[in-house]
């Protein structure tokens, strides 16, 4: 994966003729300029109905109650939890790209880390909504926090949900800080290039008085590397703990020690798939072909290929341990996965998550955007199916045959599955409009390194 260590032409990420000025202009002009925004407006208008539907569904949920979800006595969890795990998974990739790839000196991350981090922010925020709106009494979600109440009751620390609360909260706060830290030099650039005083004021405030002095750069770099080092365990912990939501239980198909690592890889997997999709769209939307190149897609496809293998191995391990453990409940569950009520979904899951990504063994496939794009969409669907099936299969095929029921989806389920996607796109569009989607200073740094 040492893509850039040599000056070999084939391994260059950026075109030969890029200059610092061109980079800065390409990225900052869309923010400063007011011209040619019709594409942005069309995109915003498309997302609005989704945002509206989501708001209406949330309103209905609060007024009529949590019963508007499709959940039932057997399948007490449903779309809300699956969506939550899925969004958290997507949120995993951004910080992973910025921190792990920074630490491992992967320079190609420079072009994608900013919007990958923004993606993290938005998806973690959206993910954080789901555990709250899944509650029977969402108004009391703060009881998970140890606040000094007059009843002197504290959260119950053995519950994975309390760990979850902290994991999400710290991950979200950290992601904001990390994202903001990376933004400071670029905010200063925009402050200096701003055409109007409100823009200048806005980015000036964000830039925190950045002057680009060597001292600034030194401190910035140091802090960034330190935070990246801190981020890596956080990235792993957040999804491990999500995995523990299931693993720290007694249900067949859930109580498996493999869950935490398997969830982390799954999260990275879907996160990269989302980054691929966003990269493609941004590249197209903002004409950034020079900075987000096929080589980026190649690298991300390789990571997804690796993840698909790990996922396949994890599934296989689950089946093997169920068979080898010999528990009737576990074996019955695996049989139910393949042949039960949700079997078609399960086969699709395997197709999308394990089979299709194998095309990435071929370089030609990795460098064809549409293939990477389509496979990534498949992965996102497959990963969502995986999360919902973990819930449906285990809860639906529980220990007692008398309480086995299927899940019947409701309108709220579908609205709050689709709606947040639009909301995410909406937030992302706002971000793309008002912030530099690519880290200018890091790309400049990369260009300088490549031309050395």
């Amino acid at each position, binding site marked *: 994966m040492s893509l850039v260590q040599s000056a070999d032409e084939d391994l260059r990420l950026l075109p030969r003729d890029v200059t610092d000025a061109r980079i800065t202009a390409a990225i900052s002009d869309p923010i400063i300029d007011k011209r040619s925004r019709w594409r942005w407006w069309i995109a915003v208008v498309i997302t609005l109905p989704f945002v509206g539907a989501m708001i209406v569904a949330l309103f209905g949920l609060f007024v009529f109650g949590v019963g508007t979800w499709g959940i039932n006595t057997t399948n007490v969890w449903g779309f809300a939890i699956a969506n939550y795990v899925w969004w958290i998974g997507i949120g995993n990739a951004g910080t992973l790209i910025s921190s792990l790839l920074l630490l491992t000196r992967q320079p190609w991350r420079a072009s994608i880390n900013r919007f990958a981090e923004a993606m993290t922010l938005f998806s973690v925020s959206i993910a954080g909504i789901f555990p709250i709106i899944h509650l029977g*009494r969402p108004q009391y*979600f703060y009881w998970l926090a140890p606040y000094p109440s007059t009843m002197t009751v504290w959260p119950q620390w*053995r*519950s994975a949900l309390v760990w979850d*609360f902290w994991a999400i909260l710290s991950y979200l706060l950290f992601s904001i800080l990390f994202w903001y830290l990376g933004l400071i030099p670029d905010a200063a650039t925009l402050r200096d290039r701003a055409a109007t005083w409100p823009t200048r004021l806005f980015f000036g405030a964000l830039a925190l008085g950045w002057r680009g002095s060597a001292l600034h750069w030194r401190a910035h770099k140091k802090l960034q590397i330190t935070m990246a080092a801190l981020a890596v365990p956080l990235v792993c912990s957040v999804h491990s703990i999500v995995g523990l939501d299931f693993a720290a239980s007694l*249900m067949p198909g859930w109580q498996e020690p493999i869950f935490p690592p398997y969830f982390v890889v799954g999260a990275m997997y879907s996160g990269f798939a989302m980054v691929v999709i966003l990269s493609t769209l941004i590249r197209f939307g903002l004409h950034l072909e020079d900075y987000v190149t096929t080589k980026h897609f190649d690298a991300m496809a390789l990571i997804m290929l690796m993840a698909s293998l790990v996922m396949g191995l994890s599934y296989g391990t689950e089946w093997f341990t169920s068979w080898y453990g010999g528990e009737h409940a576990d074996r*019955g569950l695996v049989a139910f996965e393949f042949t039960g009520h949700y079997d078609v979904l399960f086969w699709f899951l395997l197709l999308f998550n394990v089979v299709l990504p194998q095309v990435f063994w071929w370089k030609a496939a990795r460098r064809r955007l549409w293939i990477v794009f389509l496979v990534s969409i498949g992965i996102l669907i497959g990963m969502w199916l995986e999360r919902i099936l973990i819930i449906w299969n285990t809860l639906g095929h529980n220990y*007692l*045959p008398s309480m086995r029921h299927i899940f019947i989806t409701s309108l709220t389920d579908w609205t709050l599955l689709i709606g947040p996607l639009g909301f995410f796109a909406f937030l992302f569009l706002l971000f793309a409009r008002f912030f530099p989607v690519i880290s200018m200073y890091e790309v400049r740094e990369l260009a300088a390194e490549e031309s050395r």
Partner: protein
Amino acid sequence: MTHEVSPLPPLGSALSRRSALKLLAANIALITAGCGKPREEILPYVKMPERLMPGIPLQFASTLPLGGYGRGVVCTSVEGRPIKVSGNPLHPASLGATDLFAEAHVLSLYDPDRSTTCRRDGQIAAYVDLETELAARLDKIKAKNGEGLRLLTGPISSPTIFRQIAALKEKYPGFAWHRHDPLEDGSARRGATLAFGQELKILPRLADADVIVTFDSDPLGSGPWQIVNAEGFARRRRVRSGSKAMSRLYAFESVPTVTGAKADHRFTLAPDQIGAAAVALAQGLGANLSGRELPVELQSVVTAVVKDCSDNKGHALVLAGPSQAPEVHALAHWINQHLAAPITHQAASNTAEPLHKLLAELDAGEVSALLISGTNPAYDTPALRIADRLRRCPFTLHHGLYRDETAALCRWHVPEPHPLESWGDLRALDGTPSLVQPLIEPLYDTRSLAQLLAFFAGATDMKDYDLVRTTWAAQGGTGFETWWRKALEDGVIVGKTPASIQPGEARLPTLVPGSKATSPTLILRPDPTLYDGSFANNAWLQECPKPLTKGVWGNTLGISPDDAAKLEIEDGDTISISVEGREILAPVRVQEGHAPSVMSLALGNGRVAAGEIGNGVGANAFALRSAGEWRLDNVAIRKASGRTAYSTQKLFVIDGDREEIFPVYALAHLPAAKSELPKPSLLPVHDYSQADARWAMVVDNTSCIGCNACVLACQVENNVPVIGPEEIARNRDMHWLRIDAYALDSDDGRFGFEPVPCMQCETAPCEPVCPVEASVHDSEGLNVQVYNRCIGTRFCEANCPYKVRRFNFFGYADGQEYANLAAEVMHLHNNPDVTVRARGVMEKCTYCVQRISAARRGAEKEMRPIRDGEVRTACQSACPTQAIAFGNLNRQDSAVVRLREEQQHFSLLESLNTKPRTTYLADIRNPNPALPESRG
């Protein structure tokens, strides 16, 4: 409760635009004038009512009717409102237990759809008008010697009503009383006449029976004698260390019944084959009959049954069901007499005329005044076209709890008081009388049947109380008041049970060759939760899962898997069933245990004027009958659409570790007693042996007949809400206690029942996963749910291996009630000792912690420990078979400690090491070793 007379004109169809505007204006004026808070005064008791202590419930004995016969009950009343019905141990039809109908009466009392006022032609009318009109008519009738005066009732047993009817007959010689019972077993009546030349009442004593043979009979099914049958049956089958005796039940059945489910051998046969088997049994016992040749397998079965019966003379009995021909009943009488069977015979004291005679008189225009009370022929005999016939009578008066289908056809309607709000008396099926006493002032301006009959007899303004006392005035001699008080206190009148009779030699019937009908046959049954349909507006009963199908909110057409495959029908399909042009639609339930070409359907559904709850639920199987048949031949079925089947359990076959879920043992092959080895644990194990109590429950699956009395008792006691069919369809059942039904491995239509309350695990999986400590243990190890701490993550239910927790997806009891259950009067049924749960909160069985708490308070007041048996959970006290035992494991003398040492004892999903406090005794069957498939 008082009702102010409205100063406004009644709202009828004749409301003109002008008067509507007037009313509107008046309303606006009233609203403006009536602004502000209404003036209310609250006053403390100046004089404390005797016995009435706020917060201290009172208990009164009374009697509640089912099918006209009484079951003694003890009602609990809190501050003047009855909230719970329990059994009366002194009453012979209760024996301390209840059935689901008795439990459900509390809801019927507060039903907002009950009729509240006297009506003429559907419009609200005053009693004075009725009295005037009736008096004039009675004068005319009197002049004609009472000709044309008719009374039509349902099955009744009240001595007071009987006395009044006799008095009416004296006053009006032409008066006649007709009785109509839609669930009447005509075959039994004719069978007794064939055998003995007279109608007889037959009461089997299952407790004395070692061998029971049923021919399509369901003694354990719903009915006024169910509790007694169930108790006797279970008593004879209680396997404990030291008493391994167990009766043996052979069921010859064409469709599944609860009795067949519990049988040791069940044979699925067409109704005619069952008749042939009965003939063969009689022949085997020496009857001189020529019968059809039986198939070889069946002949060997009958031979084994014959031997078993002969070996147990004096302790073997045969029962025939309503779908069998009168000849089979007569044969059963002969066999029983031959076997000296433990059966009590009583004279049938039916002096009433049948319904069809009344109809003929109506057609002839001979009826000039008709009082219909407590029966609903317009619903349950639609083939008789009651509507057309009632039109020929100038004065029809309907008397009932509801303005039902028949009420709509009558000129007058008088609301009836609920049995919990009026005085009366009833006899049990065995004739034992008991008094009905009111627990509450009548909620509405109602008149009892006794009052109406008194008016007919010329006495106005009579009180029920006086009428009942008059009936019994001769008792106790000068000490009548003492006698009366004792009768009320005990809830039963001793020494008044009619003696049994010796019916004489039973004659063998002349056998008519069984019709070789191969056409589809439909067997009708009373609905296990709605009975004859009179309970259709009771939401608790509508939502109570039927024992064998777990269906709720409607009936289903039962059909065998083979037939379904042949007809290409799938479970849940809607089927049109028609007999001689009479057609209904019902969803299908494919189920083992139906004979080829034989289907089953429950009566009592498909009401159209039951009320908001019961209207349009299910299919009215009465509509297929022409004259009270229980078996319909030449049934045509075809696929249709439009009906949905609702059920709370979908899978009845155990796909899992049977030993851990529902073990079944043959009596001869009981497992060795398990010595429970403590399983290793990484976590510190809390020791509850030093706690004041370690509450535990042991449920005997052998005894459970799936009758649902416990399910209803739990619902009533714990304010468990009803959620309605739409929510049931989403699988959101709220019952804290459910009865799981599992097919036995033999696939012969037999089932086992397993009541599943909360297991109260000592290492409860629900507790560590709750983030807010809403699911916690108390000092006695009870797993308690803190409702106001619960935020509804539902992790506890996700992690509960038994799935016993129930979640308020909506405010089922608190703002989002189903249908009319939000009505203000409905709040009266709630138990004040149990929180009504809000939306978004998890709930579950608490072992009736409020009862434990009450016992603890009582014990602490007296400075003593709680006695064994002092705490009885609602499910336990309701159970007619005493399948549920409850007690303190820390007392070595308690029943649960002994039961936990039985060899058939097991814990549900024991390998999970949840250390449940609720444990089970496995289902034990007693197959005849001489028969194949004698596997339990």
